[in-house]
């Protein structure tokens, strides 16, 4: 009876940034490329070292072509909590798996990486020499080797408490690096057109990855502004010259589909499912106000209308309503399996998981926090359409019942500024004393 082929183990080295966003990004990408997240531990918390089982090297390479959270991936040959454990682990690694990379025609080099500690050159050489027992038959080439092997030593995360010995040591064959350099090349600092709320480049890529955007997908951003939130494999957008100019700057103009002016609460699309992903950063009402068109009855007395302008003066758009509209819109226009990725502003003292908007057609995939201030943060919510959308009205009834308990989103603007107002009051008081 043939034994099942064990999955190969890989060591993923992650960047220590946007910690909460990493796991959903890696999971989404693995699933996009036909793998799934399999590791011996449930979560890795703050550690930059993750050991994953991946079916093939191709999937590992595809993962690295997209990730901005991971720095590098290695085929794991051995690991342990001490050098002795590492060596014995290496001796247990099947020789037939090593041989293709060690044969006499090949060239290689060994690198030593230490995390949270610096070693002298002498110490590094000692560690390389200790690996002599490995059946390397090729020639060392420090400039352009065919194969790179790495020893990674983990000295923990606390720079104020560096242990004598590492917590963990890993040895592996380097496969590929991630896309972190895109963060610099797409930096907002270099962008030709920016607005009040242009999104950080790294987070934009993370959003696309959480959205499982793939080649030739149609992506829609209902709140686009100058065109920062959506980027990867972009298609649809919501004001044109600036967006096109920004895309042109990056050589991505062919990915630009179109732009229109409309009210996100009153979508003007025919019935159907045509978006593969909806990725957006809705206005929170702080640096930009939220607006929508409304009927006569809803406008409070004293508010004026501007008959000449193309943009009707409108009443305030309560944030809760906006998320309701956004989720409904996503449930209706996403293809089955398509994802909605958006930022939800949160007043942290009041936050509970129940406040995250829900919809019967959409399944919550991840919820990652980014702190904005001492009492506010925003959460990147990713949802996947798992059920066909039946009838518009059916859901509005359901949702309003669920939404009424939490209207806190509406007063986000007040709460955001409450800290500022208190501080100003304090300063004035102390200057008077």
């Amino acid at each position: 009876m043939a034994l099942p082929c064990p999955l190969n183990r890989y060591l993923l080295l992650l960047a220590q940034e946007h910690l909460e966003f990493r796991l959903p990004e890696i999971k989404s990408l693995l699933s996009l490329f036909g793998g799934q997240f399999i590791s011996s531990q449930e979560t890795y918390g703050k550690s930059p070292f993750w050991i994953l089982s991946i079916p093939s090297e191709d999937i590992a390479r595809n993962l690295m072509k997209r990730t901005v959270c991971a720095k590098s991936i290695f085929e794991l040959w051995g690991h342990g909590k001490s050098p002795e454990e590492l060596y014995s682990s290496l001796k247990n690694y099947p020789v037939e798996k090593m041989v293709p990379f060690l044969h006499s025609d090949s060239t290689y080099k060994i690198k030593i990486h230490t995390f949270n500690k610096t070693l002298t050159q002498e110490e590094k050489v000692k560690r390389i020499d200790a690996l002599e027992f490995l059946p390397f038959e090729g020639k060392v080439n420090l400039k352009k080797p065919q194969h790179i092997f790495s020893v990674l030593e983990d000295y923990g995360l606390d720079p104020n408490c560096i242990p004598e010995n590492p917590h963990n040591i890993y040895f592996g064959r380097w496969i590929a690096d991630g896309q972190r350099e895109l963060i610099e090349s797409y930096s907002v600092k270099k962008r030709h057109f920016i607005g009040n709320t242009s999104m950080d480049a790294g987070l934009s890529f993370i959003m696309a990855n959480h959205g499982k955007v793939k080649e030739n997908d149609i992506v829609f951003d209902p709140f686009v502004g100058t065109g920062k939130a959506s980027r990867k494999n972009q298609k649809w957008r919501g004001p044109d010259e600036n967006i096109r100019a920004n895309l042109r700057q990056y050589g991505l103009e062919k990915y630009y589909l179109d732009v229109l002016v409309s009210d996100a609460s009153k979508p003007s699309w025919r019935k159907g499912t045509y978006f593969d992903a909806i990725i957006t950063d809705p206005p929170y009402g702080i640096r930009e106000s939220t607006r929508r068109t409304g009927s006569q009855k809803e406008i409070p007395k004293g508010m004026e209308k501007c008959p000449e302008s193309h943009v009707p003066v409108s009443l305030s758009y309560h944030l809760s309503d906006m998320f309701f509209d956004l989720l409904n819109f996503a449930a209706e226009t996403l293809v089955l399996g398509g994802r909605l990725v958006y930022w939800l502003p949160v007043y942290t003292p009041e936050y509970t998981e129940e406040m995250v908007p829900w919809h019967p057609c959409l399944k919550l995939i991840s919820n990652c926090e980014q702190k904005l201030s001492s009492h506010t943060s925003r959460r990147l919510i990713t949802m996947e359409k798992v059920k066909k959308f039946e009838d518009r009205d059916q859901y509005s009834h359901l949702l309003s019942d669920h939404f009424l308990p939490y209207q806190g989103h509406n007063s986000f603007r007040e709460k955001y500024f409450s800290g500022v107002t208190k501080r100003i009051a304090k300063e004035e008081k102390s200057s008077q004393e």
Partner: protein
Amino acid sequence: MKLLTHNLLSSHVRGVGPRGFPLRLQATEVRINPVEFNPDFVARMIPKVEWAALLEAAETLHLVEVPKGPIEGYEHDEKFLRQMHHVLLEVDVLEGTLQCPESGRLFPISRGIPNMLLSDEETET
């Protein structure tokens, strides 16, 4: 505004519902924009196209060589895909109007951008 976009837009004037599609296109300025041909993308769009609406819009713009519908094996038919690529993605309406077939309401297209905003009275409750 590209014809792919036009194919997905509908009027949402109060009471109009599904009869708001397709919007009647009228163009005073059109530009042909070359766009890099991506056959896989075009093939993916074909199932989403509402053909009657597309043909009507193409006719209004006096376009030629517009396929009348998807053909057998279109995914691999380069000629078909190139024609569809041109119609859907390279024809850009810069100035014109989109008219709601039910209510007659006109939505302007200005500098290539359709403006679908309704006035406060017109919005559906």
